[in-house]
């Protein structure tokens, strides 16, 4: 019996000693991000810090459809594009009216391409996209290589596209204004190519332009690019033409207004910036 006690005691001591032996500690290495070492990446870094958005300019074939072609943006144009187009014509118009608006709504990724995205085969053959929005997370910017601050039509096209794609983002976050989809119900292009409809026909059916006849989402977004590129008086004159137009205008305008954004003020601001931009 005594022998058992000695054995038990010895084993217990041994187990205690074994159980207390320490493993080698895992050394702590703090995570360090490489800070940008050039102005372009610094500008992108700053935007990410401020707006939680990633500007991607490095070419990745997977961002466009297999049936489409697009070229990467010229590196030397990325920085001026960010400074003069993204900041001045896209971010500032909203944040000027509503503090932190873009911090809370900016797409998570904005991907830059040098040209438009040209579809050469498949269902959208001969179609050229000047911008794309994927859900609420990603917007594709095209046409960067044509950057020219002295070309008002290019500039207007750029900010029209940006605000159009951003409308898709807001559409995904909030949904379109209640009742919007019903205004022109049954009047969309349906199986017909939207290009078959004239501007006058599109307007008579309550669309800003015929591209909006594609579907409700494009209908909504085309109203936005239309209003932000057209002076208020002209917009009011256009929408007074019929009830479809005036209803949609009210819905779209109020949708933004409820979020603190007056689209007419935004248009006036854009026009002022456009008039005063310097290379």
């Amino acid at each position: 019996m005594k022998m058992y006690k000695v054995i038990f005691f010895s084993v217990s001591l041994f187990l205690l000693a074994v159980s207390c032996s320490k493993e080698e500690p895992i050394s702590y290495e703090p995570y360090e991000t490489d800070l940008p070492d050039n102005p372009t990446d610094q500008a992108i870094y700053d935007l990410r810090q401020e707006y939680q958005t990633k500007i991607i300019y490095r070419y990745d074939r997977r961002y466009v459809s297999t049936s489409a072609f697009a070229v990467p943006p010229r590196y030397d144009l990325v920085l001026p594009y960010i400074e003069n187009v993204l900041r001045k014509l896209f971010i500032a118009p909203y944040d000027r009216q509503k503090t932190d608006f873009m911090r809370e709504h900016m797409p998570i990724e904005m991907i830059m391409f040098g040209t438009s995205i040209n579809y050469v085969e498949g269902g959208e053959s001969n179609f050229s996209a000047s911008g794309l929005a994927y859900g609420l997370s990603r917007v594709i910017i095209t046409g960067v290589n044509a950057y020219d601050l002295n070309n008002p039509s290019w500039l207007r096209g750029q900010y029209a596209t940006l605000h159009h794609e951003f409308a898709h983002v807001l559409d995904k976050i909030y949904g379109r204004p209640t009742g919007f989809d019903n205004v022109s119900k049954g009047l969309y292009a349906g199986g017909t190519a939207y290009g078959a409809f004239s501007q006058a026909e599109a307007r008579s059916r309550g669309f800003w332009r015929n591209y909006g006849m594609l579907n409700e989402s494009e209908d909504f977004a085309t109203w936005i690019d239309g209003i932000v590129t057209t002076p208020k008086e002209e917009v009011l004159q256009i929408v007074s033409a019929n009830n479809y137009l005036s209803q949609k205008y009210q819905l779209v305008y109020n949708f933004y207004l409820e979020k603190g954004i007056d689209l007419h003020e935004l248009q006036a601001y854009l026009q002022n910036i456009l008039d005063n931009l310097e290379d």
Partner: protein
Amino acid sequence: MMRHLSWILFAAVMLVWMACEKTTTHLPPREISPEVDEIAKKYTDVLVQSPQGWVLAYKPDQYEETIYFHLIFKNGGKVDVLAGYRGYHTLQTDITYYFEGNYTPIIVFSGENVFSELADSHNGAYKFKIYYKESPGTFEVVRSDGFDDKRFELTPANESNLALLNAQIDDILAQIAYEEEQERLAAEVRAKIKAFVEIESDFYFYNLTVDDFSAAINSFDTVAREISLTYKETPTSAPATTTVGYTLTPEGIVLDPALAYGTVSLELLELGELLYEDPDDPNKATAIEVVSNGNVGTMGYAHVAPYPYTLTSDRSVSTVDWLLDPNQQNAGLFLYTADADQHYSAFVNADRIEFKDYINAEVNDALATNRLVNQIYFPANQASSRNIQISTRNGNDSGNKFFLYNFDLNKIINEASALNVTLTTAASTITPHIDAFNAYLDPQFPAEGVTVAPVIVGTTLRFRLISRKDSRYWVEYILNRAADRSNRFD
């Protein structure tokens, strides 16, 4: 009953009180997260505690230079602002400021203030993200709308950064003083122009003469702001008529386009004093002094022609050259007037009335009632003196009587169509009345000479001899030979 009365009185007072209660607008609370609010309170403490206040160096997007602002933050969300920006260069007190933002503190200068003015007029900002740098104890601000990421320093006020602001304010004050002076000068110019166009004179010519440039002013339109001028680039050039616009500046009249003659360009006419040269009324202005390119000239009524009148078929021949040409003399040229008012200026007509009375009363066998004319002779015999003959009727009105007065005629070199006339010897019929004849002829032929100016009556050429001393004296002569009347001078 008293009890009911008390209740009614109480109800009435309540009604009045409620009716007087003002409705107030309740603004939604500012959006600021608790974390940012905490930071904002710390920033407010730092801002308020700086004894001298803070200096912000900020350049709005569409403004040429950095503007300095002296900001004295006070408790209660108020700040006094002095800016190196015109209109706000005096202290603006109790401007409201507050913080907002969910992620980063944003300082907002609210209401009407220099920042909202800059936002409106120069794409500036009145909301700034604000970052504190503890080590130097300064702030950095960047406009909050993401328009750009330029950071501007907000540093404690000190002698050197306040000196920058004060220099800006000094510049503004100097600019204001300059503009006031310019405005005063502009008003002076406007007043001079007004006085100039109101000048009325019966001097014969209306000229703009500066240095070698001399033009006839055809019109001075203060509504259209245009001046129509006729001038000759050289004495032998054809006259050119031009209409130029003008603007009034504090310096004077700026012509647009500038008048070019030779190598000189006439653009700015500085206006000097009004000139009072009317011998009958020393308070009546006749012209104004002008200065251009450092040369002094005049604009207004004058006694002499702006440029020589020359033969259209041969610009080298002036009216004076033509008159004194021996060829005309050989051909028997003479000039004469008729006994009709239109041949004489008002001043000469007044003299004629007196002279007629004198002749009728004092001169033997002469009657001037229906005939008192001038005739100038250029005898074919060149040894004979040229002369003027005053002609009347004989005393019995039976025939014409002539009073001959010799004179020398000489061209005045370098003057526009100017002829010097010197009365020499008079005929014996004049001698007893020499003073009266001289008194009549001297104003027509003064020592300063006469201008020989062409006039076209119908289709015929006549010459007016206009006193260069007092152009209100002129006489219009008919050329005796019909062929000469087709000549054209201008």
